[in-house]
């Protein structure tokens, strides 16, 4: 269907010659009026949108220090120019982080800086790189700010820590505020706020799916493992991406969590009201929407009376949960005594555990305490490598020390597998490459940029496949999993290479009582 060429994988990455406008034709579907209106934005491009966009930019400049400082501070040194996976896959110079930022910065300079206004009066705004807000600029914004997965790789390398994600979020928020939103993100956010999850899975379907998974685990192990939902008085509320309820390989991860909870003897539950960990509001830079979505989880936690909140395998969801839940909804610790809003929840939660906690932290704790019975040899048919998901790697943490988000998932995998190898050091941990589908790009209308943006990860993968016969690429992000399942075949890899990290746990774990009934399948121990 798509008319484009999958980029050639190279053994050593090179910086190609620039190809101007190579991907200027790529922009996602525009949101329909109801998609925008459902989440509080004007339905269609408003009158005087040029002026209103500038006003919104001024509003954001007063609200976000990041935006203010980053728009002023760039010296065009070029350190970021070769760091973006979309640039490496497309050669389009506007996919260099500094050039992407300049699409916004040029307008900022024109309307908010002395230099820009001065040279515009002289008729030479170009001297300081200033531009008028007009249709051409808006179209460029719409294309190229939707060719950014907000993975923040450039922010690692910038001498001032300039984070293109912050700029791209601001640009998308400005576009939303004038009625020029992206269909994929906004439609999904509407569904989440109406039904509770991105997919619009209603309560009944959700419960039926979970019952199927319970059966599947019982068929496989002979042990009755429950996947509870809406259970009052459970100790743990699990918030997981809704892809875990239906997509491959996500569902194997969900069954993995269920087995771990079962083996640990922890009373846990899912929630139909908050059946989604993902918070696409971050992608569109909308603080108010992010708060609304986080508050669903807060409400579910209060209503169900849980003491702990654990988050499943999802990259940006973990960034939002770890970094922003406490801020936006008081889901965390350390609220002021007069902070009535946050106190209500924080009094209920058990602060001897991290809040929120990542499922890998939870599993790893059990492994360290020796509370899980893991048979590594059950994964002997696999050689596993791990893909650090961008938002986990560069926007969050696990455990108690910096960098725990790199070590803990690896510890979990190594406890479940005998064969583990890492990819090239330049492509993992904080220097990891985005899968190519993050930031609200995981939509069919952007398939070309998704495939091209995956190039650096595919090259690193190919090298360990060739050298170490790697068979499985484990990830802890729903978007990575969905993206790789689609993109791996373009590069000649089987789509089922991509694996949920907790699938490896699921396959290695020996449940209490597992195997005991083997001689007699129909044993009738029903209590």
């Amino acid at each position, binding site marked *: 269907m798509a008319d484009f060429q999958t980029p050639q994988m190279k053994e050593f990455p090179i910086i190609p010659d620039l190809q101007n406008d190579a991907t200027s034709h790529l922009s996602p579907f525009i949101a329909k009026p109801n998609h925008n209106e459902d989440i509080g934005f004007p339905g269609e491009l408003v009158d005087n949108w040029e002026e209103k966009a500038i006003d919104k930019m001024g509003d954001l400049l007063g609200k976000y220090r990041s935006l203010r400082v980053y728009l002023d501070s760039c010296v065009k*040194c070029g*350190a970021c120019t070769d760091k973006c996976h979309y640039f490496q896959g497309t050669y389009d110079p506007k996919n260099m982080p500094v050039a992407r930022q300049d699409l916004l910065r040029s307008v900022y300079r024109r309307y908010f800086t002395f230099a820009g206004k001065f040279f515009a009066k002289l008729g030479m705004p170009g001297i300081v790189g200033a531009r008028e807000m007009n249709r051409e600029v808006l179209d460029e914004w719409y294309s190229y700010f939707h060719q950014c997965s907000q993975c923040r790789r450039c922010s690692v390398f910038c001498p001032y820590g300039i984070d293109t994600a912050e700029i791209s979020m601001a640009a998308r928020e400005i576009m939303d505020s004038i009625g020029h939103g992206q269909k994929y993100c906004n439609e999904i956010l509407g569904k989440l706020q109406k039904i509770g999850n991105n997919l619009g899975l209603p309560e009944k379907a959700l419960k039926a799916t979970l019952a199927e998974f319970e059966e599947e685990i019982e068929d496989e192990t002979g042990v009755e493992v429950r996947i509870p939902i809406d259970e009052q008085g459970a100790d743990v509320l699990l918030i997981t991406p809704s892809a875990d309820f239906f997509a491959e390989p996500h569902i194997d991860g969900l069954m993995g969590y269920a087995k771990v909870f079962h083996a640990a003897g922890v009373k846990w539950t899912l929630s139909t009201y908050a059946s989604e960990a993902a918070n696409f509001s971050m992608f569109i830079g909308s603080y108010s929407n992010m708060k609304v979505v986080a508050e669903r989880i807060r409400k579910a936690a209060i209503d169900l009376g849980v003491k702990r909140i654990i988050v499943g395998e999802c990259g940006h969801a973990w960034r939002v949960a770890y970094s922003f839940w406490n801020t936006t909804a008081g889901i965390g610790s350390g609220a002021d005594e007069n902070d009535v809003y946050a106190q209500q929840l924080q009094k209920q939660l058990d602060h001897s555990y991290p809040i929120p906690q990542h499922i890998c932290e939870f599993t790893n704790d059990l492994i360290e305490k020796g509370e899980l019975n893991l048979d590594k040899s059950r994964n002997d048919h696999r050689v596993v490598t791990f893909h650090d998901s961008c938002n986990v790697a560069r926007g969050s943490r696990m455990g108690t020390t910096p960098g725990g988000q790199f070590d803990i998932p690896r510890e979990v995998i190594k406890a479940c597998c005998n064969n583990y190898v890492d990819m090239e050091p330049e492509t993992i941990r904080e220097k990891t490459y985005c899968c190519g589908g993050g930031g609200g790009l995981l939509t069919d209308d952007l398939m070309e940029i998704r495939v091209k943006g995956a190039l650096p990860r595919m090259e690193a993968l190919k090298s360990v496949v060739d050298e170490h016969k790697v068979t499985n690429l484990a990830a802890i992000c729903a978007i990575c999993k969905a993206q790789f399942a689609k993109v791996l075949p373009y590069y000649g890899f089987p789509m089922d290479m991509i694996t949920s990290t907790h699938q490896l746990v699921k396959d290695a774990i020996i449940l209490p009582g597992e195997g005991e009934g083997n001689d007699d399948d129909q044993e009738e121990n029903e209590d």
Partner: protein
Amino acid sequence: MSFLTGFYALLFYTATVLFVVGIGYKIRQYATTPAPLKIPTTPAPITTSGVVVRMAREVVLFESLFRSNRWIWVFGWMFHVALALVLVRHVRYFQDPVWELIVLAQPFGKYAGFAMIAGLGGLWARRIFVERIRYITNPSDHLILALLVAIGVSGLGMKYVAHTDIVALKSFMLGLMTFSFKPLPTDGFLLIHLLLVAVLMIIFPISKLLHAPGVFFSPTRNQADNPREKRHVAPWAAELDK
């Protein structure tokens, strides 16, 4: 008082006021703009002292730049360190007696001017010859490099080509600081040098040179990574809780 002395005296007062007020205004703006969300680029320190160390490594060693591009780091770091030495050396023109530390820096400062120009030359060459960097370069980026190079060359000119009456210059500068005006020597290199320095001071707060104060306010670098332990709410965002 000659016209020249009066003109330069006025120029320096103006430049100083614009520089101090301009930078002060921007620093105040950065400091008072809320940072509503915790966005440190991880792995990030989890304590304030850790943040101080991270920031110091960034400002003194250009750590992130070192990891991203060795050539830019070599030229950029060389230029900035040399500039720092040169500035330290220049303190001697503004004080009497001269601090011990400034005296110690003198022998290094004398040659730092060459390193400064070499660093700038390297950065400028990248702008011209590396396609990616040429693409992102605006005319103003060349102009600032030209300005800095011209300041360096004119400074070296009066040291190594045509000597300036440094005693008279110092008395002019000390005079400026006490509003008792002394005549300014009329050497070509000196007049160009001082003029360009004044221009640099004036454009500092309205140009990309703002990266100097900006780096200290960068949330990805100056925030401690402790969002689970502490609730972090900006004033405008706290309104939404009500």
